[in-house]
């Protein structure tokens, strides 16, 4: 079954007066379980809007969005919050960790909002931090961690609820290329473990890590095709 099913998704932004911006002009696509998809496109192509819609941060103006077979395009704010909490793990370019909380608390946060009892919460958060290789940094605050480590905390926070999709928005944009590569290896590993990953990026070499690339231009899908693996050594070392 498809995790995500988009049908004729249109998003209009009313800029005041008669002026309207067509950010998305009829997007139809589906993403199956355990796919690794890159959404690409230049700025202004609508990829951020598409990410917001897929991430249930925003609702489409028209069209149908089915998430695990449930129509989310007509949900209210609270229902959307619940979907985000349980089904979607976000990884942002700027990490977006809470600065005053340590790594453990940052990772626990989605579980707090999900109503998970505190003992289980802590156990799962610690396991997940261990999983991303930060088992020895759980009580460090974001400003005591390197960029790569911060992004690993963010990945742990995205994973801890065992979501249906991981939605990563330019996850390597604020990292040097070596650290960025390490994060991409982590995504590769998560994908192999069965996670569904959607990667939003404008960098072609980052998108190459995905197995399918969707290119947007002017709010429409330009191409949607499998990624040709040029960098066999990267794939080889990951397997």
């Amino acid at each position, binding site marked *: 079954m498809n995790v995500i099913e988009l049908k004729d998704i249109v998003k209009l932004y009313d800029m005041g007066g008669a002026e309207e911006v067509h950010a998305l002009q009829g997007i139809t696509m589906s993403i199956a379980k355990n796919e690794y998809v890159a959404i690409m496109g230049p700025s202004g192509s609508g990829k951020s809007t598409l990410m*917001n819609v897929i*991430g249930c*941060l*925003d609702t489409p103006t028209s069209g149908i969005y089915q998430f695990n077979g449930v129509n989310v395009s007509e949900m209210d*704010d*609270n229902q959307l*919050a*619940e979907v*985000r*909490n*349980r089904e979607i793990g*976000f990884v*942002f370019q700027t990490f*977006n*960790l*809470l600065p*005053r*909380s340590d790594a453990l608390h940052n990772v626990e*946060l*989605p579980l*707090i*909002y*999900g*109503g998970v*009892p*505190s003992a289980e919460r802590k156990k799962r958060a610690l396991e997940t931090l261990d999983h991303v290789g930060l088992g020895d940094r759980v009580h460090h605050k974001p400003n005591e961690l390197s960029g790569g480590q911060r992004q690993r905390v963010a990945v742990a*926070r995205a994973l801890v*609820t065992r979501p249906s999709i991981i939605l990563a928005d330019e996850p390597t944009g604020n990292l040097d290329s070596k650290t960025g590569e390490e994060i991409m290896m982590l995504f590769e590993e998560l994908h192999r473990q069965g996670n569904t990953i959607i990667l939003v990026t404008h960098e072609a070499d980052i998108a190459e890590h995905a197995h399918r690339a969707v290119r947007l231009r002017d709010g429409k899908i330009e191409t949607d095709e499998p990624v040709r693996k040029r960098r066999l050594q990267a794939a080889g070392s990951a397997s």
Partner: protein
Amino acid sequence: MHFLNELKEGLIISYRAVKANKMRSVLTTLGIVIGIVSVTLMSTAIEGVNRAFDRSAAAFGTDVLYVQRFPWVGNEDWALIRNRRRIEAEYATRIERQSMLSDYVAPVAATRRRVYRGNESVEDAFVSGTTHQYMNAAGTTLADGRFFTAEEGNGGRPVAAIGATIAETLFPNEDPIGKVIRVAGHPYTVIGVFEKQGGMFGVFTSDTRVFIPLLSFESHFGGRRRDVTIQVRVADVKQMEDAKLELEGIMRKIRHISPGKPNDFSINQQELLTQTFEPISLVIASIGFFITGLSLFVGGIGIMNIMFASVTERTREIGIRKAIGARKRTILMQFLIEASALCLLGGFIGLMIAFPLSLIVDQVLPTAMPVSVVFISILISLTVGLVSGFLPAYRAAKMDPVEALRYE
């Protein structure tokens, strides 16, 4: 469970936010601090005034009527009443004989004299001449010794029962019973000491009074031209009004007042004072609560202001929280908790400042900070927090996650 988790999370966040901005938080709560200090001190002061008044009023006894030339309070034209005839001590026996509703009657004549013993003295003590019935007709009790007997009273013996303040002044380290004091030069043997009454109006208490037999009083201080108060104790408090009417009738008969003519005497009672005092107490309370209300209002505006600033500063944090699943309600609660926590902090600081101040007030006016005021303060702080925190919290709760995440 879910709610408790969110509550706990809200408390942790508030704690971190207050800790991160210690100075700002404390300054913000200043209005609340002042409000709580003022409400606390005002209640303490009112409590003190009430206590003092109750003690003073109790000295009169709730069941005692005072027949006197002039009223205690009232707005009768002084020109019309100033020529009233004196009240004579001998009325007491006639009232006692005729009244059905009262059980004890005592005449009291008073003057202000110097009372001394060796080098210790009390200027202007209230020296009262009365009969042995006084103890029955008044609301006072003796701490030590006894009052004079009928024989001592009728014989005009030089004996005295003295007030607590007089006893303390003249006998700082001794038992006064059996010792001789001098009242304007005349020697009197102390046979009893009254219990301390306190009270804010000196004249109301027995503390600075010296009671001697009426006959001795008259022979030493010339009772013939002196005005007398007749204290009448009513047998049953429930029949106060009837007793008052009866007493009025007896007095009119004694004074030969023809029907239709106004009374040329007054019957006073404690209630009159209580009635006069209540509005005073109300005025003190109103001023106090006006100041409190004003500072809490200003304090609340301060909290609202800082919460708006806090919400704006943390727009991105709100976006993150919303992205990972915080509902509107959760965000609303988080900021309400933060505002309430700030106000509670102010409330506690206020109580901490007010408590030592109330001990200072206690030195001037015996009182104690009422326990209820602590709870009321906490409740007020919480309410101010919830009310002033609501608008900022609501703004935070309804933020659009996409825009909040984009905020720099």
